[in-house]
C-alpha cells in the first residue's frame, strides 16, 4: 500500500507530469506563463482545486450515478474553482489581477476533469488525494519552469528580479502566445530526449 501511494504521488511529478506528458490543459499553460510567479500561482490554484475535487469525487464515487457523473464532477469542480477565486481575491489580490480570467477557466481544465474521471472515480480517498497532490505539484512545477524560461528570455527577469544589465534587449516574442507554443514544444522535445527508453 505504501508503495502504491508513493507511486501515485511520483507519477505526477515525472512519468505522467502534466502538461508535458499528458499534453492536457494547455489553455492556462500557454496563457498565464508569461512570468514564473504567474505560473506558480496558477499551478497552486489548480492544485487546490485538483485535491479538493479528487477527494470529494472519490468519497462520493459510490453515490454518484454513472450516467450523470460528468455533471456531478463539473458541479464539484466549479464550486471549488469559485472558492479559490474568492479566496484569491481576498488574500492574494495582486496575483488574482494578474491571472484574471484564467482562474475561472480552471473549471474547464482537462487535467482536473481528467483526474476525476480517470482516477478519483475508481480509487479510494487516500489514493485520490495523493494523486491530486502529485498531479497538482507536477502541474505547478511545469508552469513555473515554463514561466521561468519565458520570463528570462522575454523580459530579462527571474521571479521579478532583473537578471541582465540595461544593455539586454528583451526577446518580447517569448511572452506572447506564439512564444508559449515554441517554448512548450522545445521543452517537450528535451523531455522526450531524456525520457526515451
Amino acid at each position, binding site marked *: 500500500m505504501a508503495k502504491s501511494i508513493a507511486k501515485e504521488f511520483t507519477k505526477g511529478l515525472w512519468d505522467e507530469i502534466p502538461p508535458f506528458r499528458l499534453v492536457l490543459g494547455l489553455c492556462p499553460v500557454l496563457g498565464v506563463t508569461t512570468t514564473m510567479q*504567474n505560473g506558480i500561482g496558477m499551478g497552486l490554484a489548480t492544485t487546490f482545486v485538483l485535491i479538493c475535487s479528487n477527494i470529494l469525487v472519490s468519497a*462520493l464515487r459510490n453515490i454518484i*450515478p454513472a450516467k450523470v457523473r460528468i455533471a456531478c464532477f463539473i458541479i464539484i469542480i466549479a464550486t471549488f474553482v469559485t472558492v479559490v477565486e474568492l479566496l484569491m481575491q481576498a488574500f492574494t489580490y495582486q496575483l488574482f489581477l494578474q491571472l484574471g*480570467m484564467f482562474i475561472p477557466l480552471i473549471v474547464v481544465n482537462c487535467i482536473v476533469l481528467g483526474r476525476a474521471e480517470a482516477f478519483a472515480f475508481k480509487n479510494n480517498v487516500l489514493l485520490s488525494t495523493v494523486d491530486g497532490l502529485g498531479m497538482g505539484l507536477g502541474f505547478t512545477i511545469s508552469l513555473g519552469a515554463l514561466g521561468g524560461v519565458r520570463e528570462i528570455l522575454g523580459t530579462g527577469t527571474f521571479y521579478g528580479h532583473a537578471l541582465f544589465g540595461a544593455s539586454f534587449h528583451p526577446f518580447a516574442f517569448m511572452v506572447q502566445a506564439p512564444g508559449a507554443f515554441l517554448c512548450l514544444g522545445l521543452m517537450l522535445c528535451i523531455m522526450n530526449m531524456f525520457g526515451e527508453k
Partner: protein
Amino acid sequence: MKEMIKMVVVLTILSAFSGGLLASVRNGTKEKIENQELTFVKGPAIKTILAGASNDPIKDRFKIKDGDIENIFFVGVFDGKPSTVVFEVSGKGFADAFGLMVGINVETDKITSIGVTTHKETPGLGEKAKSDPSFAAQFQGLSPEKEMKVTNDGGAINAISGATITSRAVCVAATEACGIYKKIKPQIQEKLKEFSK
C-alpha cells in the same frame, strides 16, 4: 425509474450543497475583497491621477445620481482649490467589463489622466492598458468635447500593439466618461464648493 430519481436527487443535493458552500465563502470574504479593491485597484489609480493633491481623495468623495446610475466622484485639491474630480466608468473590454478611472480638471475642462482599475484583459497584451503608463499618458490634456479614437479609426490615440480591441474600449469608456461629465458638470461644480476651504 428508480435510477432516474436517484440521479435527480444526487444532482439536487450536490448543487444545493455547492450553493450553500459558495454563499458562506462569499459572505466570509466579501468585506476583505472590498477592502482589497479599494487599496489595490481604485486607490492606486485615484492616487496616480491625483498625484500631488493636498487632500486624501479617497476620503473626500461625493455622489451624484445620473438617472439610475450613481457615480462616486473623488476630489483632488490642488493649491487649496478643489479643481479635479476623478470618477469611474465601465467599458466593454476584450474579455469582460473593465473599470476606468478618469480625472478631469473642472477649471480648465481638460482630462488630467486616466487609469484602468478592474479588468480581465489578456496578461501581457490588453493588460498593458493598466500597466503601461505611456498608453494612459496619451489621454492627458485632451478636451472632453472631442471623441477619443485610436489612430486606426482616425483618432489620435496609439493603440497598444496586439490589443486594438482593448485600446478601442478604453477610448470608448473615456469618451463616455466625458459625456457624463458634460451632462452633470453644474452639479459637480456645486458639490465641489463644499470642499474649498
